[in-house]
């Protein structure tokens, strides 16, 4: 029996009336000023569409009940409450800082698609620079938006509190942009983005959200930040 971890949140989060994706009761593990929301499971979860939808629905419900919540990736388990409490990524100061970052905010996601050829992210082109510099420049370029994408997101700049970007990794996908905005401003964000989209001729824009701040965990808590 392991603890399946759904989210980390402010300590005031109540789970009354909610259950986990296997129907299990939710438990609250205290992590100093924060809490971890967990359920007990006997086996690993299969990432079916239904399981993903269930976890997303639960995380959204938890998000509605507290001002600061960090979703945890699907399939995350720890041995027991002590293992979660002592987990090296959940040191008190870092967790508090991470929760402060998303407090009273929510995420919007914008996917920008183009019909013209664009180079996908690659770090293997030969250049005159050394391999170390080439590698670092390649990593940096992953998070540098193409000019067209910068123009698109400028429509919502006034609403954005934080931004994370990813260059397209498949042909046609120009970029994916994740924005943290103040809670309750999602409709304004959509209206601004759709007004901008109506002026574009060679791009399609998909706007998703608002959602919990899935993309705004600390950089060094993800394997490819």
């Amino acid at each position, binding site marked *: 029996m*392991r603890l399946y*971890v759904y989210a*980390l949140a402010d300590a005031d989060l109540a789970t009354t009336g909610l259950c986990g994706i296997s129907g299990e009761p939710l438990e609250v593990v205290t992590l100093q000023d924060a809490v971890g929301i967990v359920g007990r499971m006997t*086996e*690993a*979860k*299969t*990432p079916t*569409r239904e399981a*993903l*939808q269930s*976890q*997303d629905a639960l995380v959204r419900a938890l998000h509605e009940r507290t001002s600061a919540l*960090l*979703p*945890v*990736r*699907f*399939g*995350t*388990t*720890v041995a027991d409450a002590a293992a979660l409490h002592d*987990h090296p*990524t959940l040191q008190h100061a870092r967790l508090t800082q991470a929760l402060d970052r998303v407090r009273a905010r929510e995420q919007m*996601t914008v*996917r920008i*698609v183009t*019909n013209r050829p664009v180079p*996908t*992210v*690659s*770090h293997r082109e030969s250049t005159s620079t*050394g*391999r*170390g510099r080439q*590698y670092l420049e390649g*990593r940096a370029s992953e998070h540098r938006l193409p000019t067209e994408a910068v123009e698109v997101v400028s429509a919502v700049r006034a609403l954005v509190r934080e931004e994370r970007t990813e260059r397209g*990794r498949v*042909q*046609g*996908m120009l970029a994916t942009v994740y924005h943290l905005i103040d809670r309750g401003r999602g409709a304004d964000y959509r209206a601004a983005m*759709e007004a901008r989209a*109506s*002026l574009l*001729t060679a*791009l*399609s*824009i*998909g706007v*998703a959200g*608002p*959602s919990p701040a*899935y*993309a705004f*965990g*600390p950089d060094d*808590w*993800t*394997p*490819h930040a």
Partner: protein
Amino acid sequence: MAERRATSDALPTGALLDTPDLTLVDLVDNLLDKGIVLDAEIVLGLAGIDLVYVRLAALLCAADRVQAGDRPQRP
């Protein structure tokens, strides 16, 4: 909230942005590719049969992230 498409031009690639597939894209993006990583324990199956059991710390990501051509080459 379901994703809506805002577009000024019909693009073949833009079909990706049509619902409900876009909702699935969001689910995969958010739950498998984003979120805090502590440890991952996951079973990959097909037609109700568990095929692969993965128990890793911090290596669970979208398929395009593990394609050799797109991975950064460490010096």
